[in-house]
Structures are given as structure tokens and as C-alpha cells.
């Protein structure tokens, strides 16, 4: 699927758009930093509950390019480890939300009737609560931990994939190849998974690329409110929240993690847009 997008012609089209290349570069940068965090962070031990009061609240300098926080930890190192948490969160959330959403959407679109009505009304219900409010409500009833945070974000994310898959399944199920499969007596799971699903995957993967950025954005919003990842885990949202309390004197504590979130979301957004353009023109 992705390979089909990136045949040589697709890659040529993608490469010609400078914004897409910027997106690819930013995503590569973020992913590399996250994966190699223990190697590239200047002070890997600062990711956890580390204390060095002598160097507390230092402005940016050569030894600490992003400054240090209230207990003397290097902000740059914590930002790099923050990317690790953010990316993992994004992957796990979409790993839960996408199969559920796509599965339900396909079923609703293919079967129609009561199944369609029930599933899509449930989707409507989820989509009619402002996303952040829904995640907050779920977090409100659970303990604020990383796992629960991921569940809360996944709960608000699956309906979008259900809508996407639903619309695709509705149009695809009228195509000749589905009818052909039905006529030769293929089983329903076969038709759904082997016939219709592959045709939905390119659109789903493009949306996943775009959404990785938005999941990072929403998750950081949750932890900004104190409803997500708890300290001392280095999380970009809670770092901004902590830094915001010491504005304007310790501005670096809020500004650099904030810019870090922006860079990640921007990267995935540009990359996703680029992929979508390639696919749209490819058809």
C-alpha cells in the first residue's frame, strides 16, 4: 500500500514539493531523536527524577542550549525524551483506534440497515462531544496515568476512522469486483478483509500520518492540564504547563518544549499533506 504510493513516480511527485520534503525531514528528525534518545541527549540521566539544585533555573547556555528547569535538569535532554513518550503515545493510540474504527466503519458501510444505523449513531454521539472534553471526562473517572491517557485519546479518535472507512465501504461495495466476489460465493469476512479493505488502506495510511501529529497535539493538551502523563516522566505538555507558571522569568522552560511540540505536529502535517497530494494525483 505505502509501497504503491512510493513507486518511483509517486516519489518523484512527492520530492518536487519542497513543503513535503520539509515535513519528511522534520519527521525523520523527530523519530531519530526519539529512537536514539539515550545516545543523542546531552544528559540522559536528566530524563527521570534527577536533581541538581546548583544548576537550577539556568537560562540557555552552551552546556544547556535550552536552559535548565527548576531542579536543574537539562531542558533539551528532557525534550528529546519527551519525543519518545509522544511518539509512543501516538503509535499506541492509533494502533488501538484505527483497527476499531476501520472495522466498525467497514461493517456499517457493507452491511447497511440496522448495523449501519446503530454504529453510525454511536459514532455521531462520540463526535458530538468536543474531543478534548470527552478525553478529559474519561480521564476524570480514571487515574491520570500514561495508559489511561492513551485509552482516553483512542476513545475519541476511532469515530473518525469509522466515518472514513464507512464512506469508502459504501462506495466500494457497489463496485463490480465486490459483486463478483459475492457471486462466486466468497465469505463475508473474505469480502470485507481481502476485497474492500485493501482499497481503503492508502487513504487510511495518509490519515494516520496526518493524525500522528494531531494525537501528539491532543495528548500534550491533556497533560498540559495535568490529566495525562505524570512527573517525573518527561512529557512536552506538562513541561510547558510547568514552565508557564514561571513566565516570564524562566521563559525557556515553557518556550522550548512548546516549540518542540510545534515542530513535531508541523512535520507530520506537512508529510501527510504531501502523501495525500501524491495519492490524489495518482488516481
Amino acid at each position: 500500500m505505502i509501497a504503491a504510493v512510493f513507486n518511483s513516480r509517486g516519489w518523484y511527485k512527492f520530492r518536487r514539493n519542497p513543503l513535503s520534503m520539509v515535513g519528511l525531514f522534520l519527521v525523520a528528525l523527530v523519530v531519530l531523536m526519539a529512537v536514539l534518545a539515550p545516545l543523542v541527549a546531552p544528559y540522559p540521566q536528566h530524563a527521570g527524577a534527577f536533581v541538581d539544585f546548583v544548576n537550577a533555573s539556568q537560562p540557555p547556555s552552551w552546556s544547556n542550549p535550552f536552559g535548565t528547569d527548576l531542579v536543574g535538569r537539562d531542558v533539551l535532554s528532557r525534550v528529546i525524551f519527551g519525543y519518545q513518550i509522544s511518539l509512543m503515545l501516538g503509535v499506541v493510540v492509533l494502533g488501538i483506534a484505527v483497527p476499531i474504527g476501520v472495522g466498525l466503519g467497514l461493517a456499517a458501510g457493507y452491511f447497511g440497515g440496522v448495523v449501519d444505523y446503530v454504529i453510525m449513531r454511536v459514532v455521531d454521539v462520540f463526535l458530538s462531544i468536543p474531543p478534548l472534553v470527552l478525553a478529559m471526562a474519561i480521564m476524570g473517572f480514571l487515574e491520570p496515568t500514561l495508559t489511561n491517557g492513551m485509552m482516553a485519546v483512542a476513545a475519541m479518535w476511532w469515530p473518525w476512522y469509522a466515518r472514513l472507512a464507512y464512506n469508502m465501504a459504501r462506495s466500494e461495495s457497489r463496485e463490480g469486483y465486490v459483486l463478483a466476489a459475492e457471486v462466486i460465493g466468497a465469505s463475508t469476512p473474505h469480502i470485507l478483509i481481502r476485497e474492500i479493505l485493501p482499497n481503503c488502506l492508502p487513504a487510511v495510511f495518509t490519515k494516520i500520518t496526518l493524525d500522528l501529529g494531531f494525537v501528539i497535539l491532543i495528548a500534550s493538551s491533556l497533560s498540559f492540564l495535568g490529566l495525562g502523563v505524570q512527573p517525573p516522566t518527561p512529557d512536552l505538555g506538562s513541561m510547558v504547563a510547568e514552565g508557564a507558571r514561571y513566565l516570564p522569568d524562566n521563559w525557556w522552560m515553557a518556550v522550548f518544549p512548546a516549540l518542540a511540540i510545534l515542530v513535531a505536529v508541523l512535520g507530520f502535517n506537512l508529510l501527510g499533506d504531501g502523501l495525500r497530494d501524491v495519492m490524489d494525483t495518482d488516481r
Partner: protein
Amino acid sequence: MGPSLLTSLIRRLWMSLLVLIGVSMLIFCIARVIPGDPARIALGPNATQEQVDLLRERLHLNDPLPVQYAEFVKESLQGDLGMSLYTNRPVVTDIGDFLPATLELVLFAGILMVAIGVPLGVLAARYRDGWVDNLVRLLSLAGVVTPTFVWAVFLMLGFAFFLEWFPVAGRLSEGVPPPPGITGLYTLDALLTGRFATFADAVTHIVLPATALAMTGIGQTARLTRASVAQAYDTPYVHMAEAYGYPEGRIASRYALRPAMIPTLTILGLDFAAMLGNAFLVEAVFAWPGLARYGVQAILHKDLNAIVGTVLVISAFFLIVNILVDLTVAWLNPRIRLENRRAAG
């Protein structure tokens, strides 16, 4: 009203009602399936078993789930969302106290979105690929990829601390008494009672938080307006107006913008939902005493009734706004409006 509009309106209302019932069930289920005894959580570890039993009885926790839900719906319909277990006041009273501040914020953000986004979009469409067009592209990208709380922090740092143009936090300066509560919106109340100094003070306080909240929407509105106005500029009736030599401003406002308002209005409805959620973030940064702060407190204290009430009120608001948007779109669209007139006449 003609039959087509009436049926679609009834269908729309029925759907909204269905969705609202669904939302209440969803929130209710989440609230009831949490691990642990809600009564025990509410009363804290020091409460005696007797107190817990008493509260369980009062909250109908001993009844089966459907009975609990029926009870909950009955009480909600009577305007009773239960007592806040933290503030010890009825949740409805609490929400009534905090909601106006949030509404004022969202309303101002909405006004900014339209007042800045729409003209920018029109200009971008009129001067395609000019600098306004590029600005709109940049703004919409920046709006989408920047979290609201990052806007809030940056605006606060730049305009409140560095330039000192606007106050840092709160709804009014210290020493300024709030205007008499008619609507709860300080700016409106101050105007209604003729306190112009208070009005000016309230406006300077709301500018930054409202801008932070509106930033995502401004870019989107501008982008969308640009797209639909650009489309309108290519239609024969605009070409004809140009051929007649009508002034540019008249063409822009009378001919190009009006059909372009329909998609913009639709996105406004959606953005309203996002803003109700994002208000939580802005209120946290600017110490804005609104529903969001109440909601976060409720969540941190595991105040079940307050959480359920807050989510229900926000969702109901969102549904109402979307119905209003649908009605306005129907009214704006001559195809729908005229069809009705024909049907009625």
C-alpha cells in the same frame, strides 16, 4: 414553512435528540463503570461505612443500572444534575456561575474568527498568490499545527509580559467591581449598565485569551472563505458584475461573499465545538474563572456529578449551535429559501 424544510428540520431535531440521549448514556456509563465505589471516592478514606451507605442510597447506587439511568434522566429533565460532591452546591448552580465566563470567551473568539478570518479570505481570493494569500496559507498552517495552549503561552509572553499591552490574567483589574449580573458576560453587563470604564477594562482582559482561542479557527476560516470566494469569482454573474463596472467592494461583498458564507458557517459550527474544549487550555493559562476551571477541579477531585453535568451542558450547547447553523444555512441558501416560498405560496 414548506414541507421539505419542515421535514428536514424535524429530522435534524430528532437526530440531535437521539445524539443527546446517546451522550447522556455514554457519560453515565463511563461514570458508573469506573473501578471503586463513587460514594467512597467522594467521601474520602476517613468516612464511616454508615456515611458511605447513606450517600449510596441518596445517589441511587444500590439500584440496577437501567433504574439508575432512568432516575438520572428524570432528575436531569427537572433541571437537577445532583449536588457537587466537592463544592457542596447543586451542580446546576455551579455551572450557572461559571458558564457565562466561558461563553464570553468563546463568543469573543468566534467574533475574532469571523471578523479577521473572513476579510482575510476575501482579500486572499481577490489577490490570488499575492502577499495576503501567502499570509493566509501560513496562518492556516500555523493555526492547525500549534496547540491552543502554546498560542496562549506565546501571546501572554509577547503581549502581556514583553510589550505590556494587555493584562496578564483574570477578567477584570484588581479594584474594579464586576458589573451587576444580568447576563454574566462582564463586557455586555458593563455596556447595559453604562459602566464604560469597566467595559474597557473587561475588553483588555479578554483580548489575549480570546485571540489564543481563535487562532486555530482564524486560519481555517480564512482558508475556507478564500476557497469558496475564489470559486465565486469565477462564476458568470461575477464576470457580468465586473463587465457592468460595479465597484470592487460591491462585487466582493454582494456577489462573491454571499454564496461563500455557507461553507464558512458550517465550519464555524464545528469550530465552536473545538473552542468549547480548547477553552479549558486557555482558561488554565490566563486564570480565567470559567467552566473549564470548574471542570478540571471536578476531574481532579473525582466529583462525578459535576463532571457529568459539565460534559452534558457542553454537548447540549454544541448541538444547539449546530442546529442554529443549519437553520441559518437553510435561510441563507436561496435555493432552499425560495423553494419554501414557492411551496407556501
